[in-house]
């Protein structure tokens, strides 16, 4: 493909230069006869033809390159709101492509058609209020329709998350993501405080809050298919941005200001693999707000599971407190009994598979 495009570009350039240089040679003798003070020179027609050649080759190149690139665009959205925004995107794209094509065609065609001719005089046509009214009102109406549909979708996407939404916390840091789940017992995330962060408790989970006891962390994001998911988003050091390209989800992670985004994944990883025919396909979570040298590699893998698989996976995870029993000391006395049921009776060696999330991805 690269060679094809390269070839096309070379031809394009060669043509442009050829047209210009040829006409210079051909018209050199004519040029001498011209009034030297006139701004019109012998290349005027060559440039006019250049406009129409540019239009023709540009149209071909535009259509062709779109067809070539299209298979590599993001596949169909894997979330409910994503399906809506996708169809809206392509409708808007069709409208603006039409406007783009029509106005560029007129521009380049007029440039060609009305090229200088010494036997013709330009039409003195300074104003036409009716015309101007038309092309003020038509874009305004089209815009109003696009805006209104866009606004309704935006309103739905940013509405309050359903109360039964699965709550997952994502914390961005240089350069990775920490994921914390609300736990199987209360489906509520405990508090956190950045001052409690240490090498093990790298999210800063606050164990004076009883909701923290069953919370568990992971190095990857698991989502249940078909259930609303509410991402609670934090950042520890600088701005980051949670980007789930396949789910059409994006929200900045801001230090000191929790943000959120809720959505419903509607296609499991397996379903997407089957659809794309790629066995090793995985959803991704990337960072889209520049955050330093490792910005480009700040990604974790996202698994969308069938609800029962998700429940099973959650049940297999050990709460943070279970793998790090020393944090029991931070629990206030009145809650100790509640917390200690998560502590294994025998202090066991930390199971490496369920170890707390270290830096999810290290890219240095």
């Amino acid at each position, binding site marked *: 493909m690269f060679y094809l495009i390269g070839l096309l570009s070379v031809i*394009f350039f060669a043509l442009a230069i050829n047209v210009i240089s040829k006409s210079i040679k051909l018209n050199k003798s004519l040029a001498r006869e011209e009034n030297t003070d006139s701004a019109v020179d012998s290349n005027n027609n060559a440039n006019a033809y250049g406009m129409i050649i540019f239009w023709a080759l540009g149209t071909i190149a535009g259509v062709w390159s779109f067809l070539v690139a299209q298979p590599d665009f993001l596949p169909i959205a894997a979330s409910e709101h994503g399906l809506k925004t996708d169809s809206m995107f392509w409708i*808007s794209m069709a409208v603006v492509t039409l406007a783009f094509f029509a106005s560029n065609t007129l521009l380049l065609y007029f440039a060609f058609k*009305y090229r200088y001719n010494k036997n013709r005089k330009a039409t003195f046509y300074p104003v*036409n209020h009716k015309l101007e009214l038309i092309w003020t009102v038509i874009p305004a109406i089209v815009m109003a329709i696009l805006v209104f549909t866009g606004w309704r979708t935006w309103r739905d996407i940013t509405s309050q998350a359903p109360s039964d939404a699965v709550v997952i916390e994502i914390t961005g840091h240089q350069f990775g993501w920490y994921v914390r789940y609300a736990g199987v017992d209360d489906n509520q995330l405990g508090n956190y405080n950045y001052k409690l962060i240490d090498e093990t408790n790298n999210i800063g989970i606050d164990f004076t809050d009883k909701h923290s006891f069953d919370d568990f962390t992971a190095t990857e994001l698991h989502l249940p298919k078909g259930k609303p998911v509410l991402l609670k988003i934090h950042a520890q050091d600088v701005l980051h941005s949670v980007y789930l390209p396949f789910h059409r989800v994006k929200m900045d992670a801001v230090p000191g200001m929790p*943000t959120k985004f809720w959505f419903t994944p509607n296609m499991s990883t397996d379903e997407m693999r089957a659809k794309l025919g790629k066995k090793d396909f995985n959803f991704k979570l990337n960072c889209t707000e*520049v955050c330093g040298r490792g910005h480009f590699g700040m990604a974790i893998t996202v698994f969308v599971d069938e609800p029962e698989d998700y429940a099973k996976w959650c049940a297999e995870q050990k709460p943070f407190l279970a793998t790090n029993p020393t944090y029991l000391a931070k629990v206030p006395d009145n809650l100790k009994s509640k917390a200690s049921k998560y502590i294994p009776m025998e202090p066991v060696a930390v199971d490496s598979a369920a170890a707390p999330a270290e830096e999810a991805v290290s890219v240095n």
Partner: protein
Amino acid sequence: MSTATSHAEEVHTHDHSHDHEHEHHELNFWTKYVFSTDHKTIAKQYLISGILWAFIGGSFSIIFRLQLGFPDMQLDWLRPILGEWIDEGGKLDKEFYLALVTMHGTIMVFFVLTAGLSGTFSNFLIPLQIGARDMASGFINMLSYWFFFLSSMIMFASLFLETGPASGGWVIYPPLSALPQAMPGSGLGMTMWLTSMTFFIISSLMGGINYICTVINLRTRGMTFTKMPLTIWSFFFTAVLGLLSFPVLLSAALLLIFDRSFGTSFYLSEIYIQGQALPNMGGSPILYQHLFWFLGHPEVYIVLLPALGMTSEIIATNSRKPIFGYRAMIGSMMGITVLAFIVWAHHMFVTGMNPFLGSVFMFLTLIIAVPSAVKAFNYITTLWRGNLIFTPAMLFSIGLVSLFISGGVTGIILGNSALDINLHDTYFVVAHFHLVMGAASFFGLMAGVYHWFPKMFGRMMNKTLGYIHFWFTFVGVYMVFFPMHYIGIAGFPRRYYSFTAVGNDGAAAFTDMNAFISIAAIITFTAQAIFAWNFFYSIFKGKLAPQNPWNSNTLEWTAPINPEHGNWVGEIPAVYRWPYDYSKPGAEQDFIPQNVPFSATKSSNLPEEEAEIAKEKDIDGLLGAQNESYNR
């Protein structure tokens, strides 16, 4: 040369000895070329600085395009220039990549397209086109350039720091830019960036105040607002935009300086970095973004409006037709100016800002598309049934309109907050703004240089080289930025050193296209050498310019070919008509300059213009007052 042009000079030869006395100082090299208060010299200083910066900023983009297009390329051969920024493996340093991206944006937006474009042409054209001897304050104007020069020097010096220049993106969002421990570029490099921008803002404000005062106060007799060329209108609106929005950037920068150096917490809260919890509480990074984009969005129009204004002038002149819808053009520029202040948060739809605010800004943003569309349609209608002369300036103007449309339409998609969720901070945005603001404004700059070069230097640029330059640039720009939309639709985030983590062979799918874009960028950049050679060669060796090379109506072509400080020898011409009387039915020539009274063009006057003849006496009667104003 036209008889009409010389008309005014003949009419007003009396009584001009006294108003010029103070101009006849002996100028030495320093006061003539360096610390000059002549708006024309200052304009040339801005232009040449802008061209130099454009080559620096452009070369940065080529270096990072090499990384993006050819991620496996050994860049050892760049070590003589970049030194340690090429690591042992022969790769571009990851932080320096971000520094290049940051400096490319900063240089292009501020130093090239603000200072180089508005600084050059507002300075050069305002006095010449409104009929003034100089700016309202030549001294402040000189200071404006030298503050810009100081700012340039500081920014340039920051490129050579061991820790690198500012690297957090041209928007320098805190906390990344506020915390030196977050990245090396946030150390001294950021301090120098902020210092440099502070001087830049001061420079812009001094320039802007001057432009506004000059346009309001120093118009020649008869030059009412509705007789001003659209160039002047655009410079006027640009200056208003800058005057109202740059101070907000200054405040954003000042608060950032406080956060960085004096321990305040305007933008910082609950930060844990490098194993340490910082004490800052209660600040908001979003506050910075609001302040930044309150300038940042008007800034888009600060770089675009002058380009559109000059294009209006050039397209009308070379179509030999009046600009279509002169008042609609003014109205749409005014609309853009007002709306430019209330759309800034469309850059922030997914920053965690209240979604209701997002809805409001989406509505306002899409309103601004209407005046933009009107402008595009008016340009196209101006070409319709014209008699087009493709000077290099005209070619670049048509190119501008094309790029303005092509980049503008995707703004309708990005301005829709629901669609912006997926496209925000992807290459779709990069493609959009490079077309609509970067390339379009650059084309305006080029059009302006080709068109007014004869007035600036008294010589002509080589036209054939101009054509070749145009075709390379026009085709090249499309080849760079058109495919970039596809990469954006495929979800590739911007400011990525490489796309290895995009996953699922996403990077491999666009390897070819990224390489293609890089090659196109290199060709386009290299083609600018044609311009540079043409420009500098023609300053000294170009063909001598005639009085009015493009048969244009505006006042600057009535001034001597090489105007001295003071612009006109003798009286400043009076203005009787609008600047777009091209191909008027019944006229002897296909153009009637602004200084030709209606009483001299009886055969071509429209019925309503007959009434204007009576007013000519009043206009002429203002001569004394005008001369008086220069002698105070």
